[in-house]
């Protein structure tokens, strides 16, 4: 049972394929042999799994959406322009039919979808005969064959093509859902399955009907016609603005998704642009330091050169000053004036105390005079040297200080240089572990889409403001038009018709809004319920939200949006929950067929994710196509007692053979 009333519970009972692509003739039955309506097909890459998916699509819609990959692969291998749909290795004049049949079980009745092509063996590029029918029971239980539009109508009842990707999809769609799905696509799908399209058509046609009636009204007077023309002109502008708003919203949506996609890619990556910026600055800094060191060394050389002679004389200077110092200590400095002693000896009288010299004093004075005479010569030479020597010594000391200063500067700069160099090495090592070019590209792309997003947000603001003015003008003109009709008695009936259809239009718009909202809320509730039921570790997630554009979001327990924090497995689970909710709410309780469902999920979460299928398949048929690598021992053990049946695709001599496991 669904929101809309009645549900369709159906399952695929059998698929018959003859001569499609690499298949010879195979029949796969899918009986429900356990509590879980779960079925496996296991096959290596290239064994025919994708062909199988294409065969189903071809049977129902005559399309092969997954063909490109297969074809391009074979093209490069075989160098063929186009591979015929029929199996070129099995076809011959007695076996030239290509058939795919899907047997569907709906409330114990079988519906058979049958598509056939017949080929001329001499020209396999185009069929010479085509056939499509649906074999269905009528009300009395008798079989009847429907063809053409009637057959297609049955297909659209059971598997609407617009949402075929929600029945038969490869795991990649689950993984890439948030990147490829736009709100326009999803809205379209929801509109299709909920028949909101019918309301949309009613709205469009009713609006056109109003225009037609207004045109009739314009014939009553020139004034009415003038207002009508103004209305029409205003409406054209309004439609144009609405279209531009829609386009801008689409662009905004795409830009937001792209930003989120690159944000997700960059989530666990180093911010290489920032690091490279840092690296560039450090290298510049190092370069400057290097120049500074060179400058200091030049300065040092200049100081040394300038002081070479001083340095050579420094020891002599020092020695001389020491000598002077010593002389001074010995009281040899300043030198005694010999004339004074000679005068005292001559007058035999002391000039200081005025007393006459006795013999002893005279003798001592004579001895002193002799001693002075022997040293005063060198002392007299030393004395005038002291001042220049001191000056020279100061110069030497200045030089030493200057040299120490410059040496310290060189030392500090070298230390700085080494530190910067070590930082550069650390960043280089860090960057070495990443694909820098790719990460830079992602950064650039993210920045680009951020700009596009912001530009679109600004445009949207302007457009919405214009739209508001035009709507106000529309209301004003409608009133004027109504008044003009009212004033013209002949136009009375036209006026009533417009009022009536306008009322109908308002009801249609209200109902459309109601149904859209209710459907979205129900799908949101169901997605939320399923996601948390199936999630193996609830983590820190609080709830799932679906906005009015059907964008899925995950709210963290701290109330922020954290979709980007989900692991690949959790992301796939969210999309699977959304798909199942969509099926349930829309009433299309159809089977789901997924090619390579866990290929993109890390080993840790594969078992967790596989476990969710066990829960889901109690109420719904699921057919999974695994590669042997995906079908690990853990998954095998998990499903061993629950899987209804297992098949194997094996490629033998270019033909896909079916094995039962």
């Amino acid at each position, binding site marked *: 049972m*669904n*929101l*809309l*009333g*009645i549900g*369709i519970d159906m399952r695929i009972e059998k698929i018959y394929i003859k001569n499609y692509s690499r298949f010879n003739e195979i029949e796969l039955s899918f009986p429900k042999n356990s509590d879980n309506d779960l079925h496996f097909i296991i096959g290596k890459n290239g064994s025919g799994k994708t062909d199988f998916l294409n065969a189903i699509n071809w049977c129902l819609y005559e399309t092969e959406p997954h063909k490109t990959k297969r074809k391009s692969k074979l093209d490069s291998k075989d160098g063929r322009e186009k591979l015929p749909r029929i199996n070129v290795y099995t076809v011959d004049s007695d076996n030239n039919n290509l058939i795919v049949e899907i047997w569907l079980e709906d409330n114990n009745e079988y519906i058979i979808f049958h598509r056939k092509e017949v080929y001329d063996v001499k020209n396999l590029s185009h069929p010479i005969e085509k056939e499509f029918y649906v074999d269905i029971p009528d009300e009395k239980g008798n079989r009847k064959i429907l063809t053409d539009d009637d057959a297609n*109508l*049955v297909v*659209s*009842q059971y598997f609407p093509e617009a949402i075929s990707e929600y029945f038969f999809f490869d795991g990649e769609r689950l993984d890439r859902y948030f990147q490829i799905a736009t709100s326009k696509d999803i809205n379209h799908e929801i509109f299709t399955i*909920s*028949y909101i399209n*019918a*309301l949309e*058509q*009613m709205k469009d*046609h*009713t609006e*056109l*009907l109003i225009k*037609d009636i207004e045109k009739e009204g314009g014939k009553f007077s020139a004034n009415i016609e003038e207002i009508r023309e103004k209305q029409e002109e205003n409406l054209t502008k309004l439609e144009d603005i609405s279209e531009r708003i829609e386009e801008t919203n689409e662009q905004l949506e795409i830009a937001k998704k792209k930003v989120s996609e690159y944000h997700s890619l960059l989530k666990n990556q180093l911010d290489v642009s920032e690091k490279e910026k840092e690296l560039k600055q450090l290298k510049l800094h190092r370069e400057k330091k290097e120049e500074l060191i060179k400058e200091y060394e030049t300065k040092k050389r200049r100081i040394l050169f300038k002081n070479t002679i001083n340095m050579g004389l420094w020891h002599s200077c020092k020695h001389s000053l020491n000598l002077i110092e010593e002389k001074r200590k010995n009281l040899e400095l300043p030198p005694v004036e010999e004339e004074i002693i000679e005068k005292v000896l001559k007058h035999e009288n002391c000039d200081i105390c005025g007393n006459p010299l006795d013999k002893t004093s005279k003798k001592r004075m004579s001895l002193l005079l002799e001693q002075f005479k022997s040293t005063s010569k060198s002392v007299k030479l030393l004395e005038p040297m002291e001042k220049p020597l001191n000056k020279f010594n100061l110069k030497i000391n200045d030089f030493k200080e200057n040299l120490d200063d410059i040496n310290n500067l060189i030392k500090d700069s070298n230390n700085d240089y080494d530190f910067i160099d070590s930082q550069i090495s650390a960043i280089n090592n860090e960057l070495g572990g990443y694909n820098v070019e790719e990460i830079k590209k992602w950064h650039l792309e993210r920045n680009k889409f951020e700009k596009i997003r912001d530009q679109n947000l600004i445009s949207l603001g302007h457009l919405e403001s214009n739209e508001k003015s035009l709507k106000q003008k529309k209301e004003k003109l409608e009133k004027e038009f109504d008044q003009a009709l*009212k004033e013209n008695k002949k136009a009375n*009936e036209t006026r*009533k*018709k417009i*009022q*009536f*259809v306008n*009322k*109908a239009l308002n*009801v*249609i718009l*209200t*109902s459309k809004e*109601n*149904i859209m909202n209710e459907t979205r809320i129900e799908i949101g509730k169901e997605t939320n319920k399923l996601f948390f039921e199936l999630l193996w570790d609830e983590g820190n997630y609080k709830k799932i939200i679906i906005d009015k554009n059907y964008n899925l979001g995950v709210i963290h327990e701290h109330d922020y949006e954290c979709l980007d924090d989900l692991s690949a497995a959790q992301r796939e689970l969210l999309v699977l929950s959304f798909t199942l909710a969509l099926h349930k709410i829309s*009433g*299309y309780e159809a089977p789901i067929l997924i090619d390579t469902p866990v290929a993109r999920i890390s080993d840790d979460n594969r078992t967790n994710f596989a476990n969710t299928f066990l829960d889901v398949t109690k109420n719904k048929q699921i057919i999974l196509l695994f590669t042997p690598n995906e079908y690990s021992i853990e998954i095998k053990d998990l499903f061993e007692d629950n899987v209804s049946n297992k098949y194997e695709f094996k490629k033998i001599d270019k033909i896909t053979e079916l094995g039962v496991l």
Partner: protein
Amino acid sequence: MQNIECCDKMASTSTIRILEDLRKNCQEDKNLQLFLEAILSEEIKGKHRWREYYKKTLDEFIGDWDRYED
């Protein structure tokens, strides 16, 4: 409703819901309700010359003019 009942299975399922909502929003205006039901069934069938049908239907169901007098 006859037309709607003849439609395919899913369409009838969905249109029941749509019809219920349209009726609810018509606020017991029988003419409006009948008009909307008629055009809905025509849209579900999908194969029609809508303009002629809408105009014809409008003339058929608009009967109660007094309701729209000022």
